[in-house]
């Protein structure tokens, strides 16, 4: 096979990718072949050393995130097949997806309602505290000292409780918001490839995206903290 034939075949096999990515891949392999020829190989040998265009294309497509990869591979066989599968399967996948989304939404809502409960308790404590203090001022007006002391004590105690529960509610809310961001990244993970294939939930959109791929490049912090995990390949492989 000549260099040109190889590159043309590779381009055909990657036709499901965006044009710039195809060009980039072809340029990389053109360079690899040219470097081998400079190293003394014949064109035939150099092309053979790279491997078959099919294997090369496979390696590039395998590096895509799960969902774009399946779409790309199905589309490579036939675009019509992809649409037929999507439409014929729609009574099944659509209903399932809907049910799943409903359950996920409900669970999520419940979690926020729990947080809301904590806020309500804090608000109730605060309101009772204010009322108690108001009653204490009324007590001053009528000059009943034990009553004023009791009410002022109760009021201050309630205000303290408000601050305590309020701080807790704030912390819970922050935690839930943080987890929400994590969950969103997890949920979108089939669209953006994680390093270590889901071994660590890392929001890291990888090279080679298809247009269908919703970008999740957000969560920078999580990405950085998970960075150390990358090379743990050796250790995790053995531990798992």
């Amino acid at each position, binding site marked *: 096979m000549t260099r040109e034939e190889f590159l043309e075949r590779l381009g055909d096999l990657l036709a499901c990718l965006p044009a710039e990515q195809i060009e980039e891949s072809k340029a990389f392999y053109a360079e690899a072949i040219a470097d081998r020829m400079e190293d003394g190989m014949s064109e035939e040998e150099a092309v053979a050393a790279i491997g078959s265009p099919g294997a090369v294309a496979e390696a590039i497509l395998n590096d895509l995130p799960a969902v774009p990869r399946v779409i790309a591979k199905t589309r490579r066989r036939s675009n019509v097949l992809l649409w037929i599968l999507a439409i014929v399967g729609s009574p099944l996948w659509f209903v399932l997806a809907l049910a799943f989304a409903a359950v996920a939404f409900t669970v999520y809502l419940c979690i926020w309602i729990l947080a809301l409960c904590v806020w309500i308790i804090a608000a109730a404590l605060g309101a009772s505290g204010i009322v108690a203090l108001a009653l204490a001022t009324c007590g001053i007006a009528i000059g009943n000292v034990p009553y004023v002391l009791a009410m002022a004590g109760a009021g201050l105690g309630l205000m303290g409780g408000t601050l305590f529960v309020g701080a807790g509610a704030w912390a819970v809310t922050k935690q839930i918001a943080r987890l929400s961001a994590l969950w969103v990244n997890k949920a979108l993970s089939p669209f953006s490839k994680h390093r270590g294939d889901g071994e660590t939930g890392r929001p*890291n959109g990888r*090279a080679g995206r298809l247009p269908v791929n919703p970008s999740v490049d957000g969560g920078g912090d999580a990405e950085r903290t998970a960075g150390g995990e990358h090379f743990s390949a050796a250790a995790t492989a*053995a531990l798992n």
Partner: protein
Amino acid sequence: MEAQMKRGFLEACVLAAVSGEESYGYRIVKDVPACMGLTESTLYPLLKRLEKAGCIAVRSAEHNGRLRKYYRITDTGRERINEFLAEWPSVQEIYRYVEGARS
């Protein structure tokens, strides 16, 4: 070699290959120890991944009347190498454990 493990090793090898002076695809393939069995089809996605993660910097330069891409390690990449090396004690520990269980 186990796939996950090999992936981590390959990445460290490629980073090491570009950590001195800058290097290019074919040279990286030749430089990396043969036991890793690195080929261009493995190298290409790997380089893109490393570039995306900011571990290597890429530039195109002319060579013999054509463009060639040169890769060089960044500080992030050096950090990666250090992280990789820092795992050696735990790998050794596992090795000793497995070896000890054999006898």
